[in-house]
């Protein structure tokens, strides 16, 4: 499903990685590991099409993503370091907007149900600026709990960071469910975790 052909990345004059190739079949989790600053985030952004590779190509369903653009992004959900939520709006409104960006129309009740899974039921309707950093992270991750049939690829950058145990377990179970549905998940995480589905791992050398 997701293949990388000798990816080449230069950031700020530094050569982060070269000739990086891998293939991830469906229902598989790819764990990207490497020291801080090795280029994990750059690789993830490259897989999303946010960062243009200096060389090589990223393919989705054997077609370069540069040619698919919006068709590819309809199937992609990316959660990066930044939460991607607006302080002025409530958690539910943020989820509705985020889903709409990917072409999924949801109602406030669906959004609240997703927030409940992340233990944020009581905070669904207060502006996000009132929430703590950990809670804001959970609002961002609540996107993964939305009923989302079009998502076939999840790219998650440190999803388990700043989460307490039950929130982390909840995220892992969401990932398991999505893998079972045949999706591909690419993820970085410093915390250990286990998933039921097949797990592959690549390490970016420093």
């Amino acid at each position, binding site marked *: 499903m997701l293949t990388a052909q000798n990816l080449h990345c230069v950031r700020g004059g530094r050569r982060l990685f070269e000739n990086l190739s891998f293939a991830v079949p469906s229902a598989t989790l790819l764990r990207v590991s490497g020291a801080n600053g090795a280029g994990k985030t750059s690789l993830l952004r490259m897989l999303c099409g*946010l960062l243009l590779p200096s060389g090589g190509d990223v393919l989705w369903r054997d077609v370069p993503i540069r040619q698919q*653009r919006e068709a590819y*992004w309809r199937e992609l959900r990316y959660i990066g370091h930044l939460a*991607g939520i*607006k302080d*002025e709006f409530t958690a539910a409104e943020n989820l509705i907007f985020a889903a*709409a960006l*990917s072409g999924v129309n949801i109602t406030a009740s669906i959004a609240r149900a997703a927030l409940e899974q992340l233990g944020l039921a009581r905070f669904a309707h207060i502006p996000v600026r009132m929430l703590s950093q950990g809670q804001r992270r959970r609002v961002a991750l609540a996107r993964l709990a939305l009923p989302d049939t079009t998502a076939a690829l999840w790219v998650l950058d440190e999803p388990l960071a700043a989460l307490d145990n039950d929130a982390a377990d909840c995220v892992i179970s969401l990932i398991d469910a999505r893998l079972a549905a045949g999706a591909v998940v690419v993820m970085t995480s410093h915390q250990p975790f286990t998933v039921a589905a097949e797990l592959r791992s690549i390490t970016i050398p420093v």
Partner: protein
Amino acid sequence: MSLWTLIVQRDLRIAWRRRSDALSSLFFFIIVVSLFPLGVGPEPGTLRLMASGVLWVAALLATLLSLGRLFAADHLDGTLEQMLLAEEPLWLVVAAKVCAHWLTSGLPLVLLSPLMGLQFGLQAEEIAVLTGALLLGTPVLSLIGAIGAALTVGLRAGSVLLALLVLPLYIPVLVFGAAASGAHASGLAVTPHFSILGALLLASIALAPWTAALALRISME
């Protein structure tokens, strides 16, 4: 509800919640316009002559001031990144944001210009020409400004750089916009100026969102 209305609605609500930003660029416009009579002297003749030039330059600067709002906040909290991954083409998202920006910055300037025109002793007809030209011109300022804002998103001294990039590109709009009132004052027909402003508007609508989207993808790398 289409993504377009969703984004316009979202940006308008943010602008409403952060009213002070929009109001400050409006007050900036009023203050800059009111400074000129103090600087040049209250003599009605000269004031009438330079009214359109002053209002247009003030409109340029006020738009410039408010362009930072277009992408900066979304860049900081990560929503801009998500918009780059939307299933709708990015230029559509950018066009919606520019539309919301114009509604909160350009349009108020247009609605305010008659009041400012009175301050310069303009007659009703002259005010109509000036306001009409501003109505056609301010969207172009927002559209071209979006390209500059997209190029400078995330940069340290972004706002100064933005002015440097965008002001030269504003010159055609300034020339034809201010000249519309000039032509009217000397009894010439105003239609050629309005048609050129209209042409600039159509060209900007066609090209600016796409270019700003390209610039955004580059800046967000």
